[in-house]
């Protein structure tokens, strides 16, 4: 199973020119081959981050391949027949067709969630400026596509902070494996399971926001709409090519069903909108559905490196010190550098944090953890270079020269959105309070344990 999922990222030998530019971005050196020859991805090493998909520029040149060849390849990749996108050598196999069918037949009650990074990138696929902030248009587009509930991953990111913040405090005060690692990046989790099995205990037991949302949709969400969990089809729109693997993991069935039925990338959501003939730029701004589409700014910044750390600090600081933060913006954990360390003073507590973006940057830190002399308590790791905004499923730039601008603008838009939201801290989100009162009980409680936490497999 896992093996098959991993082959979602592939290199087409008919298109690969062997330029090896993908070798320069692969964080786990999973790509093999001789220069000038078609390259191969080693399925055991690949963490499915999709960075190779983003950099590859070898495509089916117009005069070289015929139409039948192209149609067959489009089908293999689950791409729409009518697309004008070139077919690149490094690619992923998506779920576009499955979701299109479900929306057409309407025989399931559909719930959709979008990761934070989608709302700052989707518009790029419709010719709007790089990094345009479009949560309202995104919600409107999803509604026109026929989704029954427009919920949001950001709600679940707030939930993650409640659980992960409490878990961190518990490990610090009552004893537990330290330092604790974040667990929302599925490529990072897979990497630890495969390459550092002895360290799986350091990962937070919290599921990622995608999977927390999935578990809540088919239980609490099902109850709200009086639909049986089995009649819900739950779709996640992600900037990430590894999220599909995460959704397919055996253990991700806390609701009694597969918690997330299908994952689409930002690009695939673009295909759906285009096929439906929706004029994206002309859409009005609409709201997400209540209650599972309500979110705070803290949940929203999960999409950029340092965001999970900042969101956690915004809540954990107050839980521990009982005092409000001097400034909601914890700018010391932000930035572009691959490894960023900070010390947060919270009353009698001193929290030593480190934020890592780009998997290669974490190697030396993991060695210190192994040797037992890590000088930090809590580490956030994102596989992709600037966090999820730079994920493998995000819009692909035609020119490499535009990539830095895209990252920069997407990131600024996420922070701007955070600043303009009513609630800036996860525990302030009124719908989070309600879900605990009415359904979950308390963070780390029985129900949370069942639905929102998981355990990891140390691969041997």
């Amino acid at each position, binding site marked *: 199973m896992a093996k098959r999922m991993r082959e979602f990222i592939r290199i087409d030998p008919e298109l690969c020119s062997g*330029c090896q530019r993908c070798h320069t971005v692969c964080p786990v050196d999973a790509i093999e081959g001789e220069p*000038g020859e078609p390259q191969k991805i080693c399925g055991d090493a690949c963490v499915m981050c999709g960075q190779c998909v983003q950099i590859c520029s070898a495509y089916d040149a117009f005069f070289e391949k015929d139409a039948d060849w192209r149609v067959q390849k489009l089908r293999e990749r689950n791409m729409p027949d009518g697309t004008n996108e070139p077919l690149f050598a490094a690619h992923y196999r998506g779920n576009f067709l499955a979701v299109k069918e479900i929306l057409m037949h309407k025989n399931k009650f559909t719930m959709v969630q979008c990761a934070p990074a989608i709302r700052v990138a989707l518009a790029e696929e419709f010719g709007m400026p790089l990094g345009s902030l479009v949560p309202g248009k995104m919600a409107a587009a999803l509604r026109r596509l026929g989704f029954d509930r427009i919920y949001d991953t950001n709600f679940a990111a707030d939930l993650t902070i409640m659980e992960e913040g409490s878990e961190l405090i518990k490990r610090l005060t009552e004893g537990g494996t330290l330092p604790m690692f974040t667990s929302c990046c599925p490529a990072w989790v897979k990497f630890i399971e495969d390459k550092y099995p002895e360290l799986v205990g350091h990962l937070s037991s919290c599921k990622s926001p995608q999977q927390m949302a999935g578990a809540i949709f088919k239980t609490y969400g099902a109850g709200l709409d009086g639909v049986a969990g089995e009649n819900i089809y739950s779709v996640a729109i992600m900037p990430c090519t590894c999220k599909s693997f995460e959704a397919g993991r055996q253990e991700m069935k806390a609701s009694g069903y597969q918690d997330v039925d299908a994952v689409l990338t930002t690009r695939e959501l673009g295909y759906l909108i285009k096929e439906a003939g929706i004029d994206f730029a002309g859409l009005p701004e609409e709201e997400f559905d209540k209650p599972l589409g309500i979110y705070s700014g803290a949940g929203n910044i999960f999409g950029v490196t340092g965001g999970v750390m900042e969101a956690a600090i915004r809540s954990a600081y107050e839980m521990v010190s009982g005092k409000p933060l001097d400034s909601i913006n914890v700018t010391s954990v932000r930035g572009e550098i691959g490894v960023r360390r900070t010390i947060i003073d919270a009353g009698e507590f001193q929290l030593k944090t480190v934020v890592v973006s780009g998997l290669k940057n974490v190697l030396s830190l993991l060695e210190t953890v192994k040797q037992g002399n890590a000088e930090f308590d809590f580490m956030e790791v994102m596989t992709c270079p600037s966090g999820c905004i730079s994920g493998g499923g995000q819009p*692909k730039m*035609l020119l490499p020269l535009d990539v830095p601008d895209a990252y920069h603008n997407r990131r600024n838009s996420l922070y701007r959105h955070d600043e303009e939201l009513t609630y800036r801290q996860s525990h302030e989100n009124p719908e989070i309070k309600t879900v605990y009162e009415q359904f979950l009980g308390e963070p780390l409680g029985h129900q949370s344990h069942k639905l929102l936490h998981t355990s990891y497999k140390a691969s041997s």
Partner: protein
Amino acid sequence: MNAQLNSFVVADPKKCIGCRACEIACAVAHYDKEIKTVGCLDRPLISRLYLVKTAEVTMPVQCHHCENAPCVKSCTAKCIEYQDNKILIDEERCIGCKSCILACPFGAIELIISPCEIEKKNLLSMNTGGKENSSQAVVASKCDLCTRRSQGPACVEVCSQQALRYVDFYTERKRRQSEAAQAIGAFVESFRGQEG
């Protein structure tokens, strides 16, 4: 000799890794509107330089902007012309006779659906709900050295290996002359040293 020789872009096969980034940059530079992402494409990418990959060599080929251009001589519609040190095709006047394709020793010319025609087709399909016009005008197309770009040829700019060079003969000759002068100077110097 005339200092105003035509410029052109040339690839260094020792540096080229065959990634095709230059082809994409070329197609984007000649697209009818500004686009940034792959998802924005509403028609196929059409490049004006062509990656050649054989067992012996990997490099893109493109128009050399020949001084005695065979394409100019062959053009039955007289729409290929010398302009500002370049050879340019007036796509509006091209009749698609393919003589230039046969004449070009570099294989640097291709027939494409006319950009003006695409405009018309877009309008048409909006009005007819997508029904395509069966008669599409095809025109000859080739490297125009990115006349419309102030930064110069897009292919040169994008290449991560610096395998493409924009050869401007005047500067090129000056550079070679000064390199040669330095080399000769050093040689004469050392020669004199030996003589004592």
